[in-house]
Every structure is written in C-alpha cells, then in structure tokens.
C-alpha cells in the first residue's frame, strides 16, 4: 500500500474509533510514539518492582508477605506483556533494556523515591497505583490494539493492588499510635510525587495534542490529575489521614477540589536523573542484566545445539 493510501486508511480507522493492529500501515511518528510510550510503561513496571520488592523479605506478617510477593510478581508480568506489545511494533526487548540502563529511555519518576517504612507499601498501592489506574483506564481505549488489550488486564490487576494497599493502611490506622504515624508520614512523602505522575501541566506538555489526535491519549494531564484529586480526598477522609496541602478545599463553583501549586522544578530534577534513588534503581537493573548475561548466553547456546541436533 502506498503511503498516501495507507495514511487514508489509518485516518479512517482513527476517525471511527477502531484499533490499529500491528500489520496495519501507520505513520512513522505514530510507531515511534507508541514504542516510546509502551517501553516507558514496561520499564516503569520493572523498575517499580524495586521500591516495594525491598520489603518482601521484611514484611511483618506472612499474609502481607504473600500479598506483596504476588503483587511484585504481577508487576513483572505487566512488564512482560508490555515489552511484548512493543515488540509487535518491531522493537526488541534486549535493545529496550539497554536503552533503559544507559539512561536513553525513561521510566516513571515516582520510582525514584525511597520506601522508608512498611506503610510506604500501602501508600504506593493506594496513591501510586491509584494514579496509575487513573492514567491507564482511558488507555484501555487507546488506538493501538495490542496496547489497549494489555491495559485491560493490567488495570484489573492494578485495581486489586490498590484495594490491597488501602486495606493495609486501614488496618495500620486501627493499630498502634506508631503505626498511624507511619501511615501519615508515608502519605506526606508520597502525595506530591503522586500528583506529578500525571506529567507536566497541559500548557507545558508539547506531545499531548498529537497523542490526543491519534487517540493514543484520551484526556489531558491536568484533567487526569483533577480526577485523581477528586477521587482521593474522600478516601483520605475515610482513612483518617491528612493530605499535606493547606490549599486543598472543595470548590462548589467548579465542582472540583482546588489544590496547591505543584513544585514542577522537583519533577524536572527527578526526571533529569537527580532524584533520591535514580542511580540506585538503574544500578540494580544494570547489575541484574550483567550478572544474568552468562545465563542468557548459555540458554541461547543450548537452544542452538538442540536445533542442530534436530536438523
């Protein structure tokens, strides 16, 4: 198909709200944008295993240990589906991993913050997974078919994780004074980074317009952020914690919560690599990759020998 004819079919599929599939013609820009977005999402799942994974061996009850281990396993599974979705566009998992550990591709900046107490496990489930769900539920209708379908399963599991995180916090809030303080401290540390997960404000988000025209994205960053705030405030009240924002209050005219100014310089700093844990997160991923190289080479050598024997 010529580019002109291809572009026409592509535009019709987008216009009718149907799905682009791997073998369909697509503009180079669309392909590159999808690969970048899916890869960043996959990297986020894999790097995101680290902050919570650090608490598996230290979980204070066997039930919580099992829940956390299962959750981190789900994240590995999400990473795997997403790398596979990126491969349908011609990307290669090993190449994407190299881009991650060489700092050429990003992952969600939220995972560059440390997990200082077990309450962080609950708060990550509630706020970070909650923000992720807000971002991801609309992606279940994203125009690229394999990504949209992966997101349906991922969103189901994320909603399970969020529920578990919230349940841990509810339990801790009914526990000792020390535990309640742990929860409040974790909320104080994670609230603003969670709001930053939706990305820069619309006025400062150059890719949003094109992504919305291609129906990769369905809502702007600021719309999604407002939804998250509106949903989370009543949950915080039910939990009995204070969100660390003196300007947070209901605005009856707008029918939304107003909230304070976000420190965008912090987001820029963390994205550019200067967050509290950037170096550690990448170092751990690189170490796993390097220490596993001999294992992957052996598997490839063994598979090649098997193929020779059969031939």
């Amino acid at each position, binding site marked *: 198909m010529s580019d002109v004819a291809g572009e026409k079919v592509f535009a019709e599929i987008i216009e009718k709200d149907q799905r682009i599939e791997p073998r369909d013609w697509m503009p180079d820009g669309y392909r590159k944008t999808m690969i970048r977005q899916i890869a960043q999402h996959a990297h986020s799942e894999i790097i995101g295993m*680290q902050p919570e*994974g650090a608490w598996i*061996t*230290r*979980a*204070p*009850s*066997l*039930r*919580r*240990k*099992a829940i956390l*281990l*299962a959750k*981190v*396993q789900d994240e*590995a599974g999400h990473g*795997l589906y997403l790398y596979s979705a990126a491969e349908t566009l011609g990307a290669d998992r090993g190449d994407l991993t190299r881009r991650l550990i060489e700092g050429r591709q990003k992952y969600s900046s939220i995972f560059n913050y440390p997990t200082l107490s*077990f309450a962080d496990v609950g708060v990550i489930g509630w706020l970070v997974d*909650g923000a992720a769900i807000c971002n991801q*539920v*609309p992606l279940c*209708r994203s125009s690229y078919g394999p990504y949209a379908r992966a997101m349906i399963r991922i969103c*189901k599991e*994320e*909603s*399970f994780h*969020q*529920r*578990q995180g*919230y*349940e841990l916090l509810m*339990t*801790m809030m*009914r*526990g*000792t004074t*020390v*535990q309640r303080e742990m929860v409040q401290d974790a909320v104080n540390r994670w609230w603003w980074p969670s709001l930053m997960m939706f990305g820069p404000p619309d006025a400062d988000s150059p890719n949003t317009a094109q992504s919305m025209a291609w129906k990769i994205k369905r809502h702007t960053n600021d719309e999604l952020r407002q*939804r998250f705030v509106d*949903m989370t405030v*009543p*949950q915080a009240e*039910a939990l009995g914690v204070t969100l660390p924002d003196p300007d947070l209050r209901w605005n009856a005219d707008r029918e939304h919560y107003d909230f304070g100014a976000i420190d965008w310089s912090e987001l820029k700093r963390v994205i550019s690599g200067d967050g509290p844990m950037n170096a550690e997160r990448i170092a*751990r*991923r690189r*170490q*796993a990759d390097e*220490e*596993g*190289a*001999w*294992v*992957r*080479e*052996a*598997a490839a*050598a*063994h598979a090649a*020998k098997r193929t020779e024997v059969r031939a």
Partner: protein
Amino acid sequence: MSFDDAYHSLTDHDDDARWAYGTGFADPLAGVPTALPEGVDRADLAAYCLMLGDDALVMSHRLQQWITRAPEIEDELAVANIGLDLLGQARLLLTRAGEAEGAGRGEDELAYLRDPGDFRNVWLAERADADFGQLVARLLVFSTWRLALLDRLATSGDPVLAAIAAKGVKEVSYHREYAAGWVVRLGDGTDLSHARMQAAIDAVWPLTGELFAPHPTELRLAEQGVAVDPSELRDEFDGVLTEVLRVATLGRPTVPAGPAPGRGRDGVHGDELTEILDEMQGLARATPGGAW
C-alpha cells in the same frame, strides 16, 4: 469503560463482591477435618509440621532475595511464583504446628517470634546462592527431595498434612521441572556455564546427606503412618538427579554427600539462618502489638 470504575467502591470497604477479586486468598483447606488424628503425640506432630514448614519458609526467603535480580523477566516470574508456593505451604504447615501444639501460637508467632535455635529446617534451605547456577542447583535438589516426600505424605494419617501434601505435589512438580530445565541449559550451554553449573552442583552436594537422615520424631510418626521416613526417598532422588545430570552433561559430584554439616532438625544452624531471621523478623519484633 467508565473512567471511575476502579475507584467506585474504594471507601465502601465491606463489599468484596464489587471487586474483581477479594483482598485475601481462598482457604486451601476448606472442608478438610482439622481434628488431630487419634493416638498421635501432639508435640511430635507439631515438631514435624515445623520441620517441613521451616524448610518451605526459609527456602522461600532465599527465593524472595532473588526478586529484581533474576537473569530474565520470565525468571523473575518463575522465582516469585515458586517463592509464593513455598510461602503458602509454610503458612499451612506452621498453622498446623500451632494447632497441634495447642498453646495458641499461630503462623506469625511461629515465623516471627522464634529464635534460630528453634527453627527445624535443613541446612540446604538456608544456604545463600552465590549465583543463578547455585540457585537452580539448590532448587533442583530441594524440590526433587520435597516432591518425593510430599508424594508419600499425601496419604498421611493426618488429614491436614495429607491435604497440604496433595496441594504441594502439584506445585513442587513445577519447581522441579523449572530447576531441572535450567540445570540442563546451563550444563549443556557454554563452556563458562558448564563450569559454573558443575561448581554449583559440587557446592550443594555436601548438603544432601542431611536430607535423608531421619530424625527420631520422623521415625515415630512414620511408624504411625503420619510422617515419611526420609531415608526411603534416597532411591527416587538418586534416580532423578542421575538423569538430570546426564542430560546436562554434568559429572556426578566427587565431593562426599555426608556426613551432614549440621542437624537443622535439632535446631543447629549456621550464621546464615541468623542473617535470614534478622531480616525477616526485624520489623515484626520492633513493632509489638502492631496490626498488619
């Protein structure tokens, strides 16, 4: 799909039915009678459940330490899965140990509030892995031995042990298959992987002797049809290991398999178990009265 689906019922935390899944795990022993079998010594049964439960708990801990360190994502998934299976077995066995003991201790009291000298696991479970080769060597030995054991325990006179074993057989069959697959790939891979896999098998081999040395508790309960005499597992174990090592082009270790370096079943352990328990128990012990 509605934007709000995932959030809709978060604050109504009593209604599990609105969620795709609940927040807990289904009880795998639902419907199994929990009364203690007649004529069985409670202390013996409790001690035996601790032996098998601690093996699973400590081995699971070592697998948990591999999370985010595995060579491929598929192996992250597999290692987490195996760690989760063994953790599930440990929870059931420790709970049964508490019931048999009758002193009101549950799985968490037993996991978090015992000192190293009260743990009954074999040394193989607590050994740290120097590399992925050692992990799969240890897992092959552990799962081959445990599968042979659980297979026989599925007809135990204690209905709870029998049910735990029957469930475990399916799980540990997969663990053995996973480990054997990697031992073969690494043994028959590159020169480097062959050398490392041979070194890993050699390093694990001295720990195998302890696996087949029966403890008096095991022998007493085996006579009553409740436990398995581990010395009966040797032939099956040797048969499987011989075949896997042959396919993997690995030599059978020249290192003697015994005598056992410690008697984990009597609570004699190395420093490695102390390190594991410091990590596992630290937070739980630092927050007395905490609700998790």
